[in-house]
């Protein structure tokens, strides 16, 4: 059973925590949280239309996450080329 209020709160939490996020590691934790929420929603509304309120909250959280990822120091590629 999906509780809208809890879901919206957890998405809102991501937004709040993103403001304090300083490292890629912290970002990954929040991204995982978002992915879980998104999967839960998709699973619950399988084949049905996702309510606008939830869809907007998901989109907004994703946009904030992407924006934050871009603001964090660029990923170091030096070890990737070793």
């Amino acid at each position, binding site marked *: 059973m999906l509780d809208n209020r809890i879901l919206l709160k957890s998405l809102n939490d991501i937004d709040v925590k993103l403001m304090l996020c300083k490292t890629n590691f912290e970002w*990954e934790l929040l*991204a*995982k949280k*978002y*992915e879980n929420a998104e999967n839960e929603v998709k699973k619950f509304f399988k084949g049905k239309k996702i309510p606008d309120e939830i869809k907007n909250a998901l989109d907004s959280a*994703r946009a904030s*996450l*992407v*924006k934050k*990822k*871009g*603001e964090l120091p*660029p*990923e170091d*590629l*030096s070890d*990737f*080329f*070793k």
Partner: protein
Amino acid sequence: MGLIRGIAEAVLEKAKVEMKDYIIKFIEAEKEAEKEAAGKAAVIAEKPAEPVQAEEKEPEVPEKRKEIFPIVEKDLVKYIYRTKPELISIPRELADLMQMLPVGEFACFMKLFIFTTEQKKNFGYIGNNLKKKIGLDALSPEEFEELIANLEAYGLMKVEQVSDNQRTFILYIPFDEETMSVSEMPRTEKQPERNESRNSNQQKKAPARKEPEKAEKKTPVKAEPVKEEKEEDDRPGRSRIGMEDDELYKSYRTFVNLEIDKAKMRVGRSNFDKIYMEAVKYIDKKYGFKVLSDSEKFKEHLTNYYISAFDIKSFEEWKKSK
């Protein structure tokens, strides 16, 4: 035909069972031999008159490396799960094999199995990152290496040296047609031909893409990765199994790394940060959000984006210019 196939299957089944029994007996016999050896060592250690001899014999026991016989003798192939499995289930065939493994190897294999299933594939890179991700960071690198080597000896894993510092592994997982697809066939002699045909296909495709105007208008910040698809297989971070000129490719990777560093200096820190932001947005849009949290894939796409944004030569171009 059906009868012959039936007989063949029955013979194979019987052979499997006999092989299994033989391995179990062999392992038991070996365990007994070890116990006896340990018992003898203990008896010798108890004798107070010859302490020097006991000291000499002690190191012999750990030094004796176990001879491992493969329990799987198949060529391991890279598979990809079509969708992320809801349940991580162990096929019966694999469970039978795993049962025979010693505790350490069993745990390591199980952890790798869970990890790779989670990643929707049966292969990946070996390194400290993997050790951490499967929760084996308490093990020393030597212990971890030993487990990997043993699993390889059992035939449950295949390790490949991609470059000096990079190794990849393929885990043995029975193929399931319904949920998996083959990612890459094992290396054969025909591989170079395949590469050639792929390259020629790419060359044929290249003129069809008409975006020269866009490319001309490119500024460092708004650069669009036009060459992306063409260079899909030229990604410097990507393991190029089957490629003969590994050394050349290694040089190319170094070249790309240097070019990115040079570009970073050229455009300045703030512009580079802007390009990075654009790259993140582009990768999210094109490959989906999940890629952003998959470090390896993200770095692959990011490198690809930089190659395009900074007009770095593709592998083929670079090779020709050499």
